[in-house]
């Protein structure tokens, strides 16, 4: 029963919030309580997984291959938990950032629905159900994007909407063909039935179709153009949530499908994913170097970081998958945090554009710390979480004798440092351009907005310092993904 709560709770809160959206105070409080309860439910699920490795729930008591089932293993449980954490941080930040007109337009219900859909995608054990959750996620994200009719936001939304609709069309095509090929849509069932299909050409083309569909979702090269065109036009808490979670749902779906459904023959998918991963990493980081708007720099870095995760997946070893999981968790926390910091920079200095801001180190010391920690974690400085995540991936590359891939991963890390130092020196160290420095008024920042930034920074440090237990869980998760016996047993047993 634990499995249904992370999906059901936000949905119920969303409905309740639909009634309370006219009262800003009430809506704020209810949203924070809802988010905290969701984190609690996700925590309970994580505890249950640590105890029992994998659990499943037959929805409506229909037995597994026929009915829809919800399944959680280590990967799912960790992703659900991190969704809850980011959702809470973003909602706390939104308390002072989102105006009452946006709340009336339905900001909170949409956020809750989005959370429910993301958790649904992480927990479902059925391929068609995954498609449905993706659609719910899209609809909720569309709603948040157009909320408030800001000039200039519409064109970015059009790009986001069209690309994502195309991606779901590809996804449902692949699902239809998989059904035609095997007669089942249950992922655990597909693990066995897919291996029996003799027509490997058809299986490989389906795998490619899915790589394209999820490649659009997770912004892989060359399908990433919608992302930097749309993320920087959103309200800050929304862009933080999108940047942290949305692309990662695509990465999660790829991990799940390529370790569970297409696990048999990797002779074609492996090189494809490797090439895509390298191109994604390099193009993202190079494009980021040429940008001067903070959120666009960060958007391009999402792309390059997704490349690392796909690289970890493409190696298909337990260690690499463990590295991917650590990378996912690290990246979600750090990236959401950096987007929140960008909002604070805009609040403090008046602009997202690096050319127009400066001297924040002098005026906002705490904010500097709040940027410094996630930024250098992203760039991979020890002892922060990003260092270990990169280390695991590069180590897995070297271990499986892909030396060039390891070298590229290290090089991209170095180029990430360049972008982070650019933001640091331009926004924090450089004197304010064109202005007499003595005229700069220090704008105080709301504690409601500083708290999530510092909280997430603290989590980054803690993951870095307590890497050993984190790594142990990740290694178990990696083993579990490479050899999904527990997952399949749980689905068949329905317990």
């Amino acid at each position, binding site marked *: 029963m634990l499995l249904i709560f992370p999906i059901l709770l936000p949905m119920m809160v969303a409905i309740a919030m639909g009634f309370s959206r006219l009262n800003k105070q009430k809506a704020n409080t209810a949203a924070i309580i809802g988010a905290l309860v969701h984190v609690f439910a996700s925590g309970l699920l994580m505890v249950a997984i640590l105890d029992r490795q994998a659990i499943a729930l037959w929805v409506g008591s229909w037995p597994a291959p026929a009915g829809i089932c919800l399944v959680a293993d280590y990967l799912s449980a960790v992703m659900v938990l991190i969704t809850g954490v980011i959702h809470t941080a973003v909602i706390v930040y939104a308390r002072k950032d989102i105006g009452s007109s946006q709340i009336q337009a339905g900001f909170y219900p949409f956020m809750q629905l989005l959370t429910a859909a993301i958790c649904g995608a992480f927990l479902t054990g059925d391929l068609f159900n995954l498609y449905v959750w993706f659609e719910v996620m899209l609809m909720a994200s569309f709603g948040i994007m157009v909320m408030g009719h800001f000039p200039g936001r519409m064109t970015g939304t*059009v790009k986001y909407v069209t690309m994502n*609709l195309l991606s779901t069309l590809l996804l449902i095509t692949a699902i239809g063909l998989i059904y035609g090929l095997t007669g089942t849509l249950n992922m655990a069932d597909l693990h066995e039935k897919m291996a029996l299909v003799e027509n490997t050409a058809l299986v490989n083309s389906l795998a490619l179709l899915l790589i394209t569909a999820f490649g659009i979702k997770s912004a892989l090269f060359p399908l990433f153009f919608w992302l930097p065109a749309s993320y920087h036009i959103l309200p800050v808490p929304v862009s933080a949530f999108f940047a942290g979670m949305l692309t990662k749902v695509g990465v999660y779906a790829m991990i799940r499908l390529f370790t569970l459904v297409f696990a048999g023959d990797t002779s074609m998918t492996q090189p494809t994913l490797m090439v895509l991963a390298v191109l994604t990493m390099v193009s993202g980081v190079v494009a980021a170097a040429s940008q001067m708007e903070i959120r666009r720099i960060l958007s391009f870095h999402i792309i390059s970081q997704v490349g690392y995760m796909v690289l970890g997946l493409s190696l298909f070893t337990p260690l690499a998958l463990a590295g991917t999981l650590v990378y996912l968790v690290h990246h979600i926390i750090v990236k959401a945090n950096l987007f929140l910091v960008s909002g604070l920079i805009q609040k403090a200095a008046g602009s997202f554009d690096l050319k127009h801001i400066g001297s924040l180190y002098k005026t906002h010391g705490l904010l500097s710390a709040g940027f410094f920690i996630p930024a250098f974690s992203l760039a991979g400085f020890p002892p922060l979480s990003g260092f270990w995540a990169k280390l695991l991936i590069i180590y897995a590359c070297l271990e499986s004798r892909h030396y060039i891939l390891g070298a590229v991963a290290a090089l991209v890390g170095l180029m990430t440092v360049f972008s982070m130092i650019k933001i640091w020196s331009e926004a924090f160290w450089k004197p304010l351009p064109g202005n007499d420095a003595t005229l700069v008024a220090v704008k105080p920042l709301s504690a409601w907005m500083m708290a999530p930034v510092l909280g997430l920074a603290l989590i980054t440090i803690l993951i870095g310092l307590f890497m050993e237990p984190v790594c142990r869980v990740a290694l178990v998760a990696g083993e579990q993904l490479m050899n999904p016996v527990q997952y399949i047993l749980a689905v068949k047993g329905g317990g």
Partner: protein
Amino acid sequence: MEALMALLVGLMIAAALYLMLSGLLVRFVFGFTLMGNAINLLIFTAGRLTYSDPPLINPGQTILAGQTANALPQALILTAIVIGFAMTTFLLILLARTFDQTRTLDADQPPFLCELPDTGPLASNINIPEKKG
């Protein structure tokens, strides 16, 4: 029959792609609906085409008797149709609202090409191009 359906689906998807790539966003909507329908046909065909009875259990019996149609692809298609309908509606409204601001739905025109209009003062300075005939 399957070959014929496959050919039809292929043609529909080709036409839909042509419409989607034309750069005019209204055509994208038509392409999107067309492709959605093509994919529904594809799922239908993937569930095997057979002449058979509806999958209804006769009174007094507990299992299906004889050859019946596969109900699952039809359930999938039904879901996909509903979702596609909602998405099309949203897309149309989004385009209508976008047109209010940009006065064009040609994706090759400046309002769609410049990536940094943002919410700042630049947004009001986009020079609105003449509508294409």
